[in-house]
């Protein structure tokens, strides 16, 4: 009976998070909601007046919006990494995070998907970007990286959604059982009539494995394709072959940092210490360290390639990054992404949750800046020196970015009240 008791305990502990919201929680929801609404209002103003309200200009046609897009897509990655790749590699610590990480993936993708729209000059024609039969007999240009993006992000979104939902299915049944009344009915409906029969489990296990198998290459490919938005161009600083692995490593770095940022407070507030042991967080920290090293290697390779190539345009570009007008951002980026994570070689720091939390925040900042530096400095100093020019984000761009964080946290906060934040079924299985 001990087994059963602990199963009961797991259910209770995990579902305790879904109890009546505290005042603090409501305040957080309100704050996130207001940020989101503010961002939407600014976007509305931008649509009405024109892209001029943003700071982007000639030659820097992409700025904070694309930075945000790449940042959020990057955040999305570790969710899939933890739930799919670690599933295939049967890493046991995955259970502590996979639900939260998958939710994070989904929400980050939802936020990321907004930015290509926000940055469009004529967003009301965004449907032009999808191939659909029309009277003009005009399709989309499949040679354009932006169309690859449309496909990659939509695919990633749908696959993640299915994966998330499938993972959630048995847990929904548990919630439905424990929640009486109409709310429980809704959860029951969402289970589609899941009964946990051996027939269903048989196919379920296969499906979960197949989805993990399908999602695994996406971890590498989606951010590769995002990186090709840049690498396929001819802009010095963008046009490099190392961009795909460099971006994937960066994405996982920023994603793991975001997982740590979200999980450490969540574990504390929802009292899930028993289910998310420090050793598991340490394992995530090790992934962070590894990807940080890969990213640092990419930084070195990038600079090395530029100066070894003897290409005037590349050399000026990388000189400008390190010593030009945006040098402060560059060096903050190096500190946050390369230098500080090295402290994780020290085991004690790896297990110090407060330290990890602060570090993860800094890595988030560093990774956002990395995308900003790549996007902006490359455009600011390209081929024709007459057309050089700098870029300063406008309040609209900053407000919309804040709004995107508002949306992300709003969704995440709703998630922890609406769905079980840990996979109860998998915890029981363990």
């Amino acid at each position, binding site marked *: 009976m001990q087994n059963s008791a602990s199963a009961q305990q797991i259910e209770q502990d995990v579902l305790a998070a879904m109890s009546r919201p505290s005042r603090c929680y409501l305040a957080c929801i309100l704050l996130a909601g207001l940020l989101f609404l503010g961002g939407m209002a600014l976007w509305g103003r931008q649509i009405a007046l024109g892209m001029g309200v943003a700071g982007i200009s000639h030659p820097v046609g992409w700025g904070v919006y694309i930075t945000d897009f790449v940042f959020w897509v990057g955040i999305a990655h570790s969710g899939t990494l933890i739930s799919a790749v670690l599933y295939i590699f049967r890493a046991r610590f995955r259970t502590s995070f996979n639900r939260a990480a998958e939710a994070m993936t989904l929400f980050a993708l939802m936020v990321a998907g907004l930015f290509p729209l926000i940055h469009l000059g004529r967003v009301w024609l965004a449907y032009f*970007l999808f191939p659909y039969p029309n009277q003009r007999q005009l399709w989309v240009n499949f040679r354009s990286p932006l169309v690859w993006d449309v496909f990659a992000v939509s695919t990633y979104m749908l696959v993640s959604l299915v994966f998330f939902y499938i993972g959630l299915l048995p847990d929904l049944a548990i919630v439905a059982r424990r929640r009486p009344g109409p709310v429980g009915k809704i959860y029951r409906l969402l289970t589609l009539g899941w009964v946990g029969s051996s027939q269903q489990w048989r196919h379920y296990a296969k499906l979960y494995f197949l989805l993990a198998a399908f999602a695994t290459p996406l971890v590498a490919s989606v951010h590769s394709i995002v990186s090709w938005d840049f690498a396929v161009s001819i802009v010095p600083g963008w046009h490099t072959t190392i961009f795909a692995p460099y971006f994937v490593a960066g994405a996982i770095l920023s994603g793991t940092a975001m997982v740590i940022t979200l999980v450490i407070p969540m574990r504390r507030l929802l009292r899930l210490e028993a289910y998310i042991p420090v050793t598991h967080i340490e394992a995530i920290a090790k992934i962070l360290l590894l990807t940080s090293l890969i990213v640092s290697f990419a930084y070195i390779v990038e600079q090395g390639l530029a100066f070894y190539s003897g290409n005037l345009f590349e050399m000026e570009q990388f000189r400008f990054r390190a010593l030009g007008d945006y040098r402060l951002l560059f060096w903050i980026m190096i500190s946050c992404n390369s230098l500080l994570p090295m402290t994780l070689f020290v085991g004690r720091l790896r297990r110090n949750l407060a330290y990890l939390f602060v570090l993860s925040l800094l890595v988030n900042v560093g990774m956002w800046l990395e995308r900003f530096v790549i996007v902006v400095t490359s455009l600011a100093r390209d081929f024709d020196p007459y057309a050089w020019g700098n870029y300063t984000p406008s309040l609209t761009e900053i407000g919309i970015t804040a709004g995107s964080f508002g949306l992300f946290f709003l969704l995440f906060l709703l998630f922890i009240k609406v769905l079980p934040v840990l996979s109860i079924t998998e915890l029981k299985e363990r």
Partner: protein
Amino acid sequence: MDRRQFLQMLGLVSGAAALSSCGSDKGQKELVSLLVPTEDGIVPGTEAWRPSTCCECPAHCGLLTRIRENRPVKLEGNPRHPVNRGGLCLRGQASLWRLYHPQRLQSPLKRQADGRLQTIPWSQALAEIAEALQHSRRQSRQNAWLAGRTSGTLNALLEEFCSSLGIERLAEFEPFSHAALRQSYGLLFDRADLPRYRGDQADLLITVGADLLETFLSPVDYTTQASALAADQKRHWLHLEPHYSLTGANADDRLVLTPGSEGSLLLWLLQSLASQRRYRGRWPQALQDLLPASDLAATAAATGLRSQQLQQLASRFARAEKPLLIVGGVATGHRNGQPVALLGALLQWLTALPWGGMDFSAGENYSRVGSLLDLEELSQRLAADRIGVLFVSRCDPVRHSPAALGLQGTLAKARLRVGLADLADDTTDQMDLILPLAHGLETWGDTEPRRGVIGLLQPLRTPQQQALSEGDLLLKLLRQATGKSPAADWETYLQRNWQNRFSRVQLGQLMDDGYLTEPQPQLSIRLDLARAAKALQGLHLQAPLTLPAAVIAPSIRSFDGRSRSLELLSEIPDPLTTISYGSWVAIAPQTAARLRLQDGDELQMKTAAWQSKQPVRIQPGQAAKVLTLPMDSLPAPATGIDPLTGEALRYCEALHLKPTGKRHRLPILAGSPSQQGRGLIPTPVHRQQKHDQQNHGPRASFYPEPHYENYRWAMAIDLQRCIGCSACVAACYVENNVPVVGAADHLAGREMSWLRIEPFYDEQGRVDFLPMLCQHCNYAPCEAVCPVYAAYHNPEGLNVQVYNRCVGTRYCSNNCPYKVRRFNWWQHKRTPPLDLLRNPDLPLRSKGMMEKCTFCLQRIRIAKDRAKDQKRLVQDGEATPACAQSCPAGAIAFGNLLDKESGIYRLVHSQRAYRVLAELGTEPAVHYLRPE
């Protein structure tokens, strides 16, 4: 009734219903004018070309005006006109902005006691003037008429008007009066006139201060001459100046001398030339004795040039077969102005006159123009309360007279001040009555800018509101004051005058071609020794100016400031500094380093009597301790009067320079003054590299070779000829409805120009100009990245942008190595009536779209349609983009590369041809011919 018939009926009925229900009253008027062709044979939807004359500056270039839907939409130089031969400068292009200027004066205005202006009817204005004229006659005050330069029949009418009303016609006022030159020619040759200098025939051109390319006499004419000269390796052009001007930038050699030392230089040159065997016989010893002594060392010290440079200059001068020296501009605008002009004229007599380098028979028509001395006299008479009614027409003496003259104060003494103008200026601000004048494209008229060249003005648009042509105004006033007038209206007067003067054939020619040339008698110019001796007796060279000194330099964008209010000209950056809006002072890099100044830092310049604060712009190649102050930067660009010549002094010396610590945001459009060694304009080093590349054989490519059927449009730009004057830029703005966005967007890096002039300076401060526009690449990086096919390659090689398809990702712009794509950051609107200035052949772009140069697709389309009607292909020269058409230097050629006979084919395969950033493999269709 069968189905077919039914549908036809349905179509007819619904079409008629839709047409009849179209729009408001305003819209209906428009609709009618489109449906009913006017008597001029103007057919809606098709263009018509009418000849006319540009009145934006005194050069009066010949125009062809493009009319669409009853309004002028584009000006082009008349290819056969003797003054400009097809070219048109940026001011000429922009003069349409004057025609449609939102602030055009629309009706007579009267100043109230509280200083505000009130609209009054013409009848009242004329009655008040007539009464005031009579009143001042009774009080035995003189009535006076002050005008800008006037020529042609208007001159005759004005003469008639003034004599019959007893109005004194004052010497005409022009800020660039060239008084010193006219005075010296008067003193030496008894011919106080301005000749046409024949730089086109000279083998050595030495210009001292004369800004041939910007404002000197007839800039388009001299641009054509000078750029041809600069492009010819066998001929040489040398420019001497203290500051840095566009003219200096384009000369083969530019020598920088101390401001005010031109006299010493010319004196030494004269003496060393007179001692040459070739000229010795011609040079009268009598004059030699009158000249002050001069030697090489002293001249070198005074001018700041090295002795070696001076000797080289002299020997080159002596060797030249057809040398031509032109002095003027800033060289005569200081206290040594008279000696400079006199010595210059003597040198011209010695060297240029014998081979016909100066054509006095085709003299520029400046004989009626006075100088600031005349204005000084007027001011004194005003102060003495001797002037009753003062008319000021088409000039701005208040702005252009030095503060010391006190004209603004003395003007108040006149009993009635009447201003005639099309736009308000400093002078109209002092007037009691302001009468609106019609634009040159709204009225009949003729001009005679150069003796023997008569240009036609004809109304191509109904005048704005109540504006009148000056001729009509004079006739009305005459009728009001005397009860009778020589003609019912100006057109009748003009017709009668023409019929008297010209034969029928000539008149037909004038109407058809827009101009007429009358043969002029050859003049023999002789040096009058006695007069010359008298003039030289008093010749005294004063010391050069004390440094640091500022040169107040004229601007190619606003002439003497008269075109300042045309916003298009502020939108186009100054070619040397690339500053668009606002004022500045250009300083040398050394000076900036010494004073720790950066671009935009404010600098205070102070003398005892004068001071100014301006943001600085660091100008490579500028001499240390010499500052260039654009005329437009100052409220009063003349600092004093030269008592000897009446020229405006345009220098400030012994300046006290002090940074104020304030910083302005200057719209500097260039991201870098240097090309950073990138070979956009190849230096010898790059040429070597290119040669190496060629030895590696053709570029390997994964992509299929482009294939074109009948046309592959291409452009060649000769950098040797390009002078950076930006006429092409202005032409492009007007032709393609390019939005003018203003200073705030320029500061944000959002200018919309499809074509820009990029100045690149080398270490020595020499500059080359690179016109940059869409390169229409074979392998265009912008096209492949567009997700929606808005940018694609058309079968004639053009890189086209489908505005309606564009969703605004801006990826194409990011991926364009030439950065020539422009994004519509806002919904750009033009203030009425500027919205009428619109080429209906191409759409206006709305917010969120990308746009760029199309090689003037609409013009190619017109040429192709014409060729199709005649069942043939477009021939060489039939399709010309606006930029190529406007270029006074003839630097831009356009055509079909598949036509092996075409001019473009020859240019593209010339030795000098190269492509910018060719190493990227984009294979542009714009080929540049590198400067040697």
